[in-house]
Each structure stands twice: as C-alpha cells, then as structure tokens.
C-alpha cells in the first residue's frame, strides 16, 4: 500500500467505478460462502439434535436479539442514507449519518458484550464444566452460537474500522460527491453484515 497515492493520482484519469464495485461484490460472495459453510454446519447439527437445540435456545434472551436486530437494521439504513447524502452533494449530512452508523454499531457490540458475559457468568462457555455436563446437542448449539455470533461480531468490528476510515476520507475530501465508490463499497460490506444477522437472529433466538 506504500504507493497508494501515486496510483490514486494516476488512476483518476481512467477510474472504473463499476469494476471496483464488481470486485467488492465478488468479495462479498466469498463472505457469503464463508458464513454459508457455517450455516451448513448449523443445519446438519440442528437436524441431528432437534430437541436439544430447542432446549438450549431457551437460555438465549429473545429481547436482546430483537434489540440487536433493530439496531443493525437501522445502522444499515443510516449507511444507505449517507450514500444518498453524498450523491446529493451534502457532505455534512453524509458524515452525520456515518457517525450514527458507528454509534449504532457500538451499541450492538455493547449489547453483545453484556449478553456474552451473562452467559459466561452462568458457566456457559466453551470448555466450561457446566456446559460439558449438558447433552451433546446443547454443547454443539453453544459452540455454534459462540463461533457464529463471534465471527459476525468480528465483522461488525472490522466494518466499524472501515467506516471510520471512510468518514475521515470524506472529511478530507478524498471521497467526494463525484468519487464516492469507496463509500459505496464500504456500505455494501456493512449491509452484508446486516444480512448475515438477519439469518442468525431467527436461527438462534427464535427457536422457541
């Protein structure tokens, strides 16, 4: 990345926004298949341990899950609005919406933190004695719960870092109303994080 500035200057002449977006979408497919692999593991184990999955899911708090769903959906909205704002040449509004997104993402992570720490306090964490005494199906459920929501949380964190950098670039006018493909691509990434949560939510919190 050392010569990013030279290239950025050169490439200004023949910039290919559609190509950049195509690259981003291809990357998103790899993310979809990465999580897809985990959903496959989930599907197989849920199929094999239907009753145990239901019992284990009772421990999860539907309220927190719903709240986090609403938070993420709203943050998706604010990113989309941020792009709309920059298209309308409103730099200030665009930054405001990005700040809102970052704040919502932070809420999500704080929620997640409290959710996980309550679980830990109840002795439900990988390798814990209380968890290992439960039937195999429940061990698998919690294993998947921690791995899938954990990896999703990691994506939220990465997304936050990216959006923060993008915000700085808007401030410095590196991203402008006629060159905002980076904002669009980061937005795409953020929507993907939301998209994955849309499936994680019913699969973990709404089994009844």
């Amino acid at each position, binding site marked *: *990345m*050392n*010569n*990013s500035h*030279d*290239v950025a200057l050169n490439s200004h002449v023949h910039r*290919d926004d*559609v*190509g950049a977006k*195509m*690259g981003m979408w*291809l*990357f998103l*497919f*790899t*993310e*979809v*298949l*990465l*999580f*897809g*692999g*985990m959903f*496959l*593991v989930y599907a*197989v*184990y849920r199929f*094999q*341990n239907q009753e145990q999955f239901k019992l284990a899911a009772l421990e999860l708090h539907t309220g927190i899950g719903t709240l986090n769903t609403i938070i993420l959906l709203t943050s998706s909205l604010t990113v989309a609005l941020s792009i709309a704002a920059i298209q309308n040449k409103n730099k200030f509004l665009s930054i405001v919406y990005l700040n809102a997104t970052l704040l919502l993402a932070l809420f999500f992570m704080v929620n997640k933190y409290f959710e996980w720490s309550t679980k830990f306090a109840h002795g439900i964490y*990988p*390798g814990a004695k209380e968890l*290992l005494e439960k*039937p*195999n*199906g429940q*061990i*698998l459920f*919690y*294993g*998947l719960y*921690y*791995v899938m929501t954990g*990896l999703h949380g990691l994506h939220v964190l990465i997304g936050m870092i990216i959006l923060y950098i993008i915000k700085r670039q808007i401030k410095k006018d590196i991203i402008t109303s006629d060159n905002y493909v980076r904002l669009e691509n980061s937005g795409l990434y953020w929507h993907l994080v939301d998209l994955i949560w849309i499936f994680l939510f019913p699969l973990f919190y709404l089994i009844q």
Partner: protein
Amino acid sequence: MANAVAENYLQQSTNKYSGIKSWLLTTDHKKIGLMYLIAILFFFLVGVIIGLLMRLELIAPGKTIMDPQTYNSLFTLHGVIMIFLFIVPGLPAIFGNFFLPIQIGAKDVAFPRLNLLSWYVYMIGAILALVSLFLPGGPIDTGWTFYIPYSVRTSTNVSLAIFAAFVLGFSSILTGINFVTTVHRLRAPGMNFFKMPLFVWATYATAWIQIIATPVVGITILLVIIERAFGVGIFDPALGGDPVLYQHMFWIYSHPAVYIMILPAMGVVSEIIPTFSRRTIFGYNAIAMSSLAIAFIGYLVWAHHMFTSGMSDTARWVFSLLTFIVALPSGVKVFNWVATMYKGSIDPQPPFLWVMSFIFLFSIGGLTGLVLGSLATDIHVHDTYFVVAHFHYVMFGGTGTIFFAGLHYWFPKMFGKMYNLKLSKIAVALFFIGFNLLYFPKFILGYMGMPRRYYDYLPQFESLQKISTFGSWILGGTIFFIVGYLIHALIKGKKATSNPWGGVTLEWHIASPPIQENFEVIPTITHKPYDFSQLKEMKNE
C-alpha cells in the same frame, strides 16, 4: 512513459524505486507473475526433495533413513507444499498474471495493488507453513487432509500449519477476484467473450472456483483452529460433532480445488496445440464451454472422496453418478485437441512435446479416475497406492507437466531469451520415462493392496517399490536438469525473437520481453484468436 518504447518491463520501474524495491513494490502484473514464478518454483523444488526422501525411505522394507514419525510429517508436508504452495497457485498466479491481461489486450489487471497484496499474502502463508515445522510441538503429521478427530487431538503444530493454508486461500481468493473483474472490465475493443483465447477462458473459470469454493475451506479450517484453541464443540465426536461433516466441508473446497489445478493447465494446452499445428483450434466454443462446465460440475462431486466414510447409500450413488458426468467435458477437450492436430502441419518443438506427454499421462490419470469413481471398485482400492498413483498422474502428469510446457512455451516471451531446444527435447523424454517408472508401479502396488501413507511394507512389494524409487531419481534429476538449463539460458541464452513459435494470440504481437504497459497502442481485435491467416500480416509488420 511513451518515450521509453525501447525499454522492456524488466528494465523499467512502476514506482519511484530502482533495484530490488522496484520489484517488491511493483504493481506490474508481469513482474508480480515473475515473483510468483521464483517463489513457487522454490517451494516446488522443496516439495520434490521431500518426495525424493520419502521414496528413498521406501527403497527397502523397514527403517532405511528416517523414523516413522518423520515419515508421517514428510508426507504431510509434501502434500501441503505441493497442493497449497505449488499446484493451486502455480499456473493462475504465474502464467495467469503474466499473460491473461496481455491476451485480452489490457495494460494490467483490474486491481494492480491488490495483485501485489496477494503475492505478499501468499508469501506470508508460505512462511507460516515453514515456521510451523520448526516450532516446538513438531511438524504437522495429519496428512494434508487434516481429518478430524486426529487433527484436534495430535500435539503437533496443526493450528499454525492450517492457518497457513487459510492465509494461502485468502491469496487465492484475491487473485480470483482480480481475474474475474479484469476479464469483465478490461478487454480491448473488439475482444468479445468469444474472441478470447482459451487460456483466458480457462483462467476465468478457475477464478470463479477460487472465489466460490475457497471460503468454504477457509471456514472449515477456522473451525478446526477454534476447536483446538478453545475446546469449542464443532467436529469432535466426543462433544457430539460429526467427523464426516468435516470431511464434507473439506472436500466441498478441495475437490473443486482439483479443477483450480487442472483447468488453467487445459487452457495452456489449448494455446500450445494450435500454435504448433498451425491450425485453428477445433471446436473453440466446445472447449470454452467445457471449461465452465468442468468448473460447475466439479462442484457437485466432492463426496466421491468419502465413499468409505460411512455416508448414506443415497449420497454414495448420487456422487458416483455425478462423478462420471464430469468426465464428459474433460473428454470433450481431449477429443478437440486431437482433432486440432489432424491434418495440421505439426512442428514438434519442446512445448508441443510436453503437451503430448501431458495428453498421455492425463488420459491415464483420468481413466483410472473412473475406476475410483465407481463405488464397487473404489471400495477395493480406497486409500491404497492406486489412489496415490491416480492423483499423481492427474496432478503431476497433468498440471505439473503443463507447468513445464507453459514455461517452455512462454519463456522466450517472458525473458526475451531462448533456451537450448535439443536439451529440452531430451528433458521431455527423460521426464516421461522417469514419471512412468515412478508412478505406474504404484497402480499395481495399490491393486495388490499396498495402503497409502505407510512407512513400512510387506516383502512381496519390494521389487515394485524399488522400481518406483529408481524412477524418482530419473524424474528428480530431470527436474533439476530443466531448472539448470533454463537458468543458463537466462544468463547466456540467445536473444529470442518476438514470435519464435509462430503464435497468433496477442502476446506474440508484442515485443519480447514486453514493454511496461504491454502495448504501444491498445489493439482493436478483429480476428478470432487462432486465425493463422494473421501470420503473414504479422511478418510484414
């Protein structure tokens, strides 16, 4: 840069640096291709040496030069290095990088900096893999498939080694994204999809598999690492997991990966055969489409690696049936290649001879694949030397041979130097003899019941094992001989002309070695890719 027409890319720098930095920080797809060539060739030779050591151990029953645990590590390393560091990245990263943009008339790939990044990611992965050998805990001993539950129980450095595979997968994904976008966005005017050379088609299909299959093994590897590190119950049967599910996940990638390895090789073959037959390719559309078909059907056959794992009978016959279907597009290719040669004016130069050797070896590999694809016979030879022989015929006899074919075909273009043709013809013959001596006895051994990955064997296998080891010396010697005369050519070779073989795809229209941005003027494409009527115009140019 217009004033530097006479200078080629080897002398110029894409950044403000000169010397080694002009290479390490370059965004030129050609230089990155060469950097891959150096790295990949190095790891290939390491893999070869490990293979030679294994063969030496097997020259006689019992202990010869190493203890069993070392042998376990060596066959794992041989697999990991050859698969993840050589064959998977090999052809796309070297020749794809160098020639895909040129063949579609582009100045570079779509994301040049990402391209450099993927080289660094590759190097990091490779270094991690090497580091894992020397850390306490010892080198990984699970076999390159890392099967559960052994891989969560063994105390060797599994986590680091498979993390290296994860990193290498990431590099592979980045390359794939780059190539798909390049093909869609950067074709020269007039270059529609059906005017693209077949190597581009094959690399394009490969890039799609890289994008769509690699993440699945990525997550599988991550899950194993998490399982080892935190004791999370995922695949371990002691915690309710299903090891067969691991095998599914592993092969969902690793079978399509076989096509990542072979498809670009098939593309190179489709380049070389028309050039040396002076005839347009027979069945262009069929070959192009069969690349996509292989990429697609190759996705549906993974569980044929698992016929004896305790899968349901339904899954076994479904996957067996699908496996037979994938033989069809491969057959389409072979027949079209042979038909291209028919009535051509064949010029048996070294690249062509390599390809002939490929068709022979790959056909044996492919046909024995059908023996393994049928349920009943697979149960008999599963996990024996028969399987080992089969995939060496396909991978080494197929992709490995074409690695050398491509290297000999494009060497004068890449470096502007010509190697000794007579020596390289001898090398093909030696390679062919050594290869068959090394691997053919393994078919017989496997059929007789010699299991794979064994350190020791029964006395009745000794003579065939000895022949195999003898073959490994010829083959190994030939490989070092080839590297030797190519390096000699690099230093003292005669200057190559811009079109030594009489090829007509775009790379033969430009200087050898090419200039910085490949073309002085971006060409407008009017001809089909293998239209040899262009040759006359090209000579007048």
